[in-house]
């Protein structure tokens, strides 16, 4: 057999595989890989978004991202939001999951009621809570009717930050809860029976059986919450529009407003690259640090 005919046969054998993976790879490269490389390239320029007028500025944008007070404030608030949101969502999610994991109509109604906001767009949820918490909003109207002073939910920086965190947790803990319920259901019933025979109480059972067995679900929930809350944007836009006095701006909020409103795409790109690295590192770190806890389940 000649070399060319052999090559031809190899190609014929490979062609279907290439045809089947090719389109997906092409789209992925065009919309993920190329943009990622471009993001890094753009982060080294002072591009304003128009034309091809790039000026190479080295790592200046990165220094700015770490030194400009606004960028730092956004980074700090994003970190607080991600950490507090993750803790609250998981505490609430796990606690409520333990209460309503059983069967029965009331449990299933409760699950639906706690979960439904997850299905609604974050933008709409922000607008809804803004209508409830605004100075003229529903809650302050009720407060006024009781004869108290209005509460500056959205006009005081600290209150506004709390309002953003509350809204994120409100709309999201149901998702964590559903995952925890799925996890609780996967714990074999025999373990509990054995523990009951041994005379272990509810609390002891939760500590010694339920919680360790949930380790993989805990990991998934922590990673998803942390990574998800690092890119909160829609809720902030519709709830506080980043205010008052830029106090509730998150990193993604900054990236998008700097890039598309102020035309500082290079700076926005640098913040994007930083966020990307932080997300990947945190996701990986949580996954790896939870290995030990998960291994115990496998045994």
């Amino acid at each position, binding site marked *: 057999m000649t070399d060319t005919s052999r090559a031809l046969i190899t190609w014929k054998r490979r062609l279907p595989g290439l045809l089947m993976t090719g389109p997906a790879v092409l789209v992925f490269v065009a919309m993920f890989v190329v943009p990622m490389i471009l*993001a890094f390239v753009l982060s080294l320029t002072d591009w304003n978004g128009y034309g091809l007028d790039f000026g190479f500025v080295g790592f200046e944008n990165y220094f700015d991202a770490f030194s400009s007070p606004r960028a730092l404030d956004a980074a700090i608030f994003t970190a607080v939001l991600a950490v507090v949101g993750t803790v609250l969502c998981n505490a609430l999610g796990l606690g409520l999951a333990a209460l309503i994991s059983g069967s029965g109509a009331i449990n299933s109604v409760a699950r639906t009621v706690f979960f439904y906001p997850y*299905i609604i767009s*974050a933008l709409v949820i922000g607008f809804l809570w803004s209508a409830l918490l605004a100075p003229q909003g529903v809650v302050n109207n009720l407060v006024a009717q009781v004869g108290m002073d209005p509460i500056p939910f959205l006009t005081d920086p600290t209150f506004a930050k709390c309002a953003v965190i509350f809204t994120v947790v409100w709309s999201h803990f149901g998702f964590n809860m559903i995952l925890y319920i799925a996890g609780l259901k*996967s714990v074999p019933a025999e373990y509990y029976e054995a523990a009951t025979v041994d005379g272990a109480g509810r609390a002891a059972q939760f500590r010694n059986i339920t919680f360790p067995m949930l380790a993989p679900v805990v990991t*998934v929930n922590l990673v998803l919450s942390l990574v998800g809350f690092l890119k909160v944007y829609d809720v902030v836009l519709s709830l506080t529009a980043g205010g008052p006095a830029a106090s509730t701006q998150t990193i993604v909020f900054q990236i998008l407003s700097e890039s598309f409103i102020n035309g500082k795409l290079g700076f926005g790109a640098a913040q*994007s690259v930083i966020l990307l690295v932080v997300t990947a590192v945190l996701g990986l770190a949580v996954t790896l640090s939870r290995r030990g806890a998960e291994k115990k389940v496998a045994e």
Partner: protein
Amino acid sequence: MTTTESITTTLEEGPDEVTLNTAAIRARPLRKRRRSKIRTPLAGRIAKWLVLAVVAVVMLVPLYVMIISAFKPQADILQNPLGFSPDSFTLEYLMNAVTSEKFNVIGAYGITLLFVLLVNVFCILLSAPAAYVIARGRRKWHMALLLVFVSGLFIPGQVTLIPVVFVLRMLGLIGTIPGFVLFETALTLPITIFLFTAYLRSVPRDIDEAAALDGAGKIRAFWSCIFPIMKPVVATIVVLNSISVWNDFVNPQVILGPSSGIYTVTTGVYAAVGQYATDYTTVFPTLLLAVTPAIIFFIVMQRYIIGGLVAGATKG
């Protein structure tokens, strides 16, 4: 955790709870008595119901306020936020929202639904064959390909948005429906290929071999023999995609842009509500219109949605 097991139990739970027959109800006290041997003190049970009631109120009051306020004039919304009197009931503001020039609701439903449909179709057309090749492949590059796709899970879509705009502009697709659908489809690839590959690895190779013996090529064998078996995982992906495309705001806002005149439900809500946030006779009816399809979808598809999210999350 045995993921698939727990998903199926979560899924299977649904209908049983809804169709409680009398036998099940009669059987319940028995089960309760047996469980109460592990002693649930009355105080504990009261505390449990109290907690559930408080959380339920916090979850439901916003929805309740949104619904009733959509049918009230501004003064009534302000003075009587939680109450509802038939005297002030009006459909006027809801009709205003439906016919608003700022935000064509019916048009937005249509266009968003079209996007949901297109993204689902393209996502499955692209991902399913690729996942099949990866799942069946034994070479290193198959594994590498899977890793590349899955790494996309750690890339927040918003982060690549700026350069994506640049790429789409070069392709001449910025501000167009094909450009938006292309990016949105790309965002679905990582999780879809991951789930499809995991599923296909559990499909026996015998089917491939049988198809090959009958003379079917690889592509033909996939679409006519393997793909029909993928129904459950395709359903999961359709649910996940539909929710994320329907709720997406940043991508349509940036890629389609206000100048294109193409509004999805979310960008339409933003255009209609964004600047008029204190005119509650606009806010509440618009929000109600935006939320209704999602809530109906949720009620109808509840078990698939929850099952899909659990599958997507625990495998991803």
